[in-house]
């Protein structure tokens, strides 16, 4: 009996202990499983002052790791919006009359340059006397798109391609990163498989990662010199051009963008048009404005301002 009573009292005691265990351990397990589950989810961002670094006000943030094979984000010229306008021509070789910025023109290239009456650069013309296709709102084409009003540029990417959304003209380019070969230049366009495809304003681009943070982009198959210019200073480019871009993510918040022009029709040797041009990462919430060319607005501008401003001193404008 005693044993039996002891047993009974021991069983009660064991049941009490188990009840306590259930009360304490089960919720703990539940919470821990929730916690474990949460570790698989993206971390909830704390309430912070600095959206990019995640640092609280006054706290010095540790530099963020440089992501591998990733250019996604909204980028703008690191030294301010003025830096990307490149009004006097490509950033590394502006058309400013300095001997070190003279381009290696072929005779044909020099002739093409002289036929362009640019609004900017060493040989700039009055607004009423220019023949820049831009002022007819023609597509700028590539690479001029990168050399004119390079402002806030959004880059989106997946495993197949990187898409660049330029602010000026609301224009995009596709850079294929799926391993395809660069199309071969042939008469009348480019050869893709066995098919000849037409030239494009923004060409055909393929990109290859040469290390964790550097993408090399090759582009060919662009429009001819009768349709596009290289830059706002009137430098020419032809349908024989091959453009190489080296886009290096120098750190989490900066890109360095180098562009080399190889156009045997216009230039005797390849030359660098943008040299490690720095872009900085913007707040991902930033809404990029549109900047466009409207022929209606352009004609009004010419009528109201550019034409009378171009009248030689002493003559009447007819305004």
């Amino acid at each position, binding site marked *: 009996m005693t044993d039996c009573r002891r047993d009974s009292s021991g069983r009660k005691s064991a049941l009490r202990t188990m009840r306590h265990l259930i009360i304490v351990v089960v919720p703990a397990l539940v919470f821990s499983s929730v916690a474990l589950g949460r570790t698989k989810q993206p971390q909830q961002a704390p309430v912070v002052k600095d959206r990019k670094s995640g640092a609280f006000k006054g706290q010095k943030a540790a530099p963020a790791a440089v992501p591998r094979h990733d250019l996604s984000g909204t980028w703008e010229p690191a*030294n*301010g*919006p*003025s830096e990307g*306008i490149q*009004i*006097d021509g490509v950033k590394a070789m502006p058309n400013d009359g300095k001997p070190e910025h003279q381009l290696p023109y072929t005779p044909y290239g020099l002739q093409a340059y002289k036929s362009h009456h640019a*609004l*900017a*650069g060493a040989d*700039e*013309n*009055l*607004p009423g006397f*220019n023949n820049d296709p831009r002022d007819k709102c023609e597509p700028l084409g590539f690479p001029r798109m990168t050399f004119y*009003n390079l*402002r806030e540029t959004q880059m989106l990417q997946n495993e197949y391609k990187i898409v660049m959304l330029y*602010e000026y003209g609301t224009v995009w380019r596709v850079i294929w990163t799926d391993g395809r070969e660069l199309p071969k230049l042939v008469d009348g366009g480019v050869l893709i498989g066995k098919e000849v495809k037409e030239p494009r304003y923004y060409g055909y681009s393929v990109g290859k990662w040469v290390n964790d943070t550097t993408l090399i982009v090759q582009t060919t198959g662009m429009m001819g010199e009768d349709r596009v210019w290289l830059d706002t200073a009137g430098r020419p480019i032809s349908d024989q051009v091959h453009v190489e871009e080296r886009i290096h993510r120098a750190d989490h918040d900066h890109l360095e963008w180098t562009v080399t022009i190889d156009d045997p029709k216009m230039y005797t040797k390849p030359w660098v048009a943008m040299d490690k041009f720095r872009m900085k990462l913007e707040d991902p919430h930033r809404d990029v*404005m549109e*900047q*466009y*060319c*409207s022929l209606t*607005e*352009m004609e*009004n*501008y010419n009528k*109201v*301002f*550019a034409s*009378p*401003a*171009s*009248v*030689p*001193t*002493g*003559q009447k*404008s007819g*305004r």
Partner: protein
Amino acid sequence: MRSKVMAILVLAVGGVTLSVPLFAHHGTAAFETEKKVTLKGTVTEWLWSNPHCLLQLDVKGDDGKVVHWVGETQNPVSMTNVGWSKAAIKSGDEVTVTILQVKNGMPLGRLVSVLLPNGKTLISGEGASREVRDELERQVREGTSK
């Protein structure tokens, strides 16, 4: 911060003319002079357009004769960067503007600043150094110029 804004205003509207090619559409040397004129007038149109925004105003001279002036700025994106907007100026506003007049002497030029009826001054950054303009843009981006 207020003193910084004042410094920008003084540099932009005052004597500094370290002008650099900031315009996104055309160069500077062909038709710009460093001749700054200050005009009081009535806005007839503020056109928020590309490739340049245009402010048109009627200015009455001492002789009572009205001269129609046109001032251009940069494009809407660039002007937004320095704190201007489509709604900032209205037809009928009495304003005081500073303009870099064109070489041929026509009543045209680049707007340096506009003093609005509410006492606020809009600064374009033209006629000032690149550093001044960049500082202005930085302040607008950070919302500290208001």
